[in-house]
């Protein structure tokens, strides 16, 4: 029985000039899986995200999405293939409303185009209504229904992260990449985030890769964990395996990462 690999990172190396940010990293994600990538600051977690979403191109190695080579495709092309992401440093369209932000995410599914916009008419309007209704559903799902018409910039930090998730979902992705979704959230918001991620994973059946510093959250929800350190993969396994992995403990010890105690 061979479960289809949604994403396959095959010996990927990423170099910036002389600096090797990622060295020969391989791992894969199965359909519907919830994988976490952890590691100390500067381990190369976001770098590998950027490679998966077309912002960087791997210097060596291959990235396959559903068996198809996606090295060198541009971010927008990858979204059309079904990969969407959120950003560690929140990147919303700050002057647009919550609903408009999500509608921008929906645009890649819209068939309206420029000509449709110029021509107008009933069909275009019907499509727009459909788009708006779907976008509203995503917003309700992440719990921002009351803030539909609020400008993104006016939302508190935690809610901005939720909005980024709604925007990413609106693209109709299969694979959702979450870059530190819990950063800056309080305990209550974290709880809500955890159930949201579970909902997206279990009910929407999306494959999720998650970068997170909050080890409790990671141990709590992920099915498998990949640990990066200094650009290399040092461990991979279930939360239980990772908790007792000697290499992982060493990587975190001595670093100034506040999470070390939680890991050990």
């Amino acid at each position, binding site marked *: 029985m061979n479960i289809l690999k949604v994403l396959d990172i095959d010996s990927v190396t990423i170099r910036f000039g002389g600096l090797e940010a990622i060295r020969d990293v391989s791992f894969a994600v199965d359909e519907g899986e919830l994988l976490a990538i952890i590691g100390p600051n500067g381990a190369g977690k976001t770098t590998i995200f950027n490679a998966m979403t077309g912002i960087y191109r791997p210097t060596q190695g291959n990235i396959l999405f559903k068996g198809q080579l996606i090295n060198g495709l541009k971010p927008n092309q990858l979204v059309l293939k079904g990969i*969407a992401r959120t950003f560690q440093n929140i990147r919303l369209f700050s002057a*647009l409303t919550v609903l408009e932000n999500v509608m921008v995410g929906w645009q890649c599914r819209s068939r309206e185009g*420029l000509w449709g916009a110029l021509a107008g008419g009933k069909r275009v309007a*019907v499509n727009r209504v459909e788009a708006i209704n779907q976008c509203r559903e995503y917003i309700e799902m992440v719990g921002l229904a009351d803030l*539909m018409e609020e400008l993104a910039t006016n939302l508190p930090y935690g809610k901005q992260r939720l909005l980024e998730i709604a925007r990413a979902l609106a693209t109709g992705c299969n694979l959702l990449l979450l870059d530190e979704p819990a950063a800056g959230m309080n305990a209550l918001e974290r709880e809500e985030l955890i159930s949201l991620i579970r909902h997206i994973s279990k009910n929407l059946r999306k494959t999720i890769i998650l970068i997170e510093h909050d080890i409790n959250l990671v141990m709590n929800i992920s099915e498998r964990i990949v640990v990066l350190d200094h650009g290399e993969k040092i461990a991979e396994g279930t939360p239980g395996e990772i908790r007792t992995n000697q290499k992982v403990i060493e990587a975190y010890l001595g670093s100034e990462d506040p999470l070390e105690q939680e890991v050990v």
Partner: protein
Amino acid sequence: MEHLARFTLNYRNKAVSLVFMILLALIPLFIANDYYIHVLITLGLFIILSLSLNLVSGYTGQLSIGHAAFYGIGAYVTALLMLKLNLSFLVAIPIGGLVTAFFGLLLGLPTMRLAGDYLAIVTLGFGEIVRLVLLNWDKVTRGPMGLPGIPAPELGSYVFMSKIPYYYTVFIIVLITVATMRRIVNSGFGLSLIAISQDELAAEAVGINTLRCKIISFIISAFFAGIAGGFFAVYISFVSPDSFTFMDSIMVLEMVVLGGLASIPGSIIGAVVLGLIPEILRFMAEYRMLIFGALMVVIVIFKPDGFWSAKKRMRNAIMKDLAARKMIDTKTVSPRGEYIEGA
């Protein structure tokens, strides 16, 4: 109740703009003064130019300081077509627009690699190169002497003699421009443009082909600027490189920014205000432009957000439009819905 109020408001707005347009259309009947009509025609040209630049620099957020080049290309192409090929202005002006649109495509390409100040510098370089070519390509453009004697437009046996037919022509072009721009910015495509101006990388990361959008916005922008240029050539019946300088590009940018970036009414107001100030200052004779320069500084210091308030800018009226057609529930539609009108 609120529902009803919003609908009546919507129809009242429509009625108001209709009355306003009729009044504008009737102006030549009340004002027989050639000078006033001339000023109005000039304002019409400014409005087309500022609306066209607004698409690129306001909505898409790509700073362009070479817009006069498009205006110039449209003017020269139209002039040459009418002078050399005896084409009617009805054919020459649209062709001028299309040729200019092609140059818009060319200027859109560098946005692949450049943004912000660096892109602005490329647009400046483009503007200067176009002006220098017009100045030096003697065989075609007659250099600094320009192209005089562009024939007055004819419609069948009717020849444009007074300023009034020009007024109506520019009036129609302005209406077409406003209608087109409204449709573009109040669409999904328009929303994508605003997204690009806000955060290009994020826009790309949610699936927008940003390069394509930027290039299209340059093409449309150039097309309308080219049309304005073509009309200008026909109206003045003379073109020379002096009319398409860096300073002209800057004036248009000024209209867009002072009116309020990414707002259609803003660009119109900007064009009208900045177009009128030098006319109003005419009584100051030689001090006119001196005061104008100082006024520019004062305005940006005290009104850095533009005449049209920030809240009304960068708005997309898809939802308002649908709500008005009773196609979506207005409960959650924008408390700001009211002032989205046309923005």
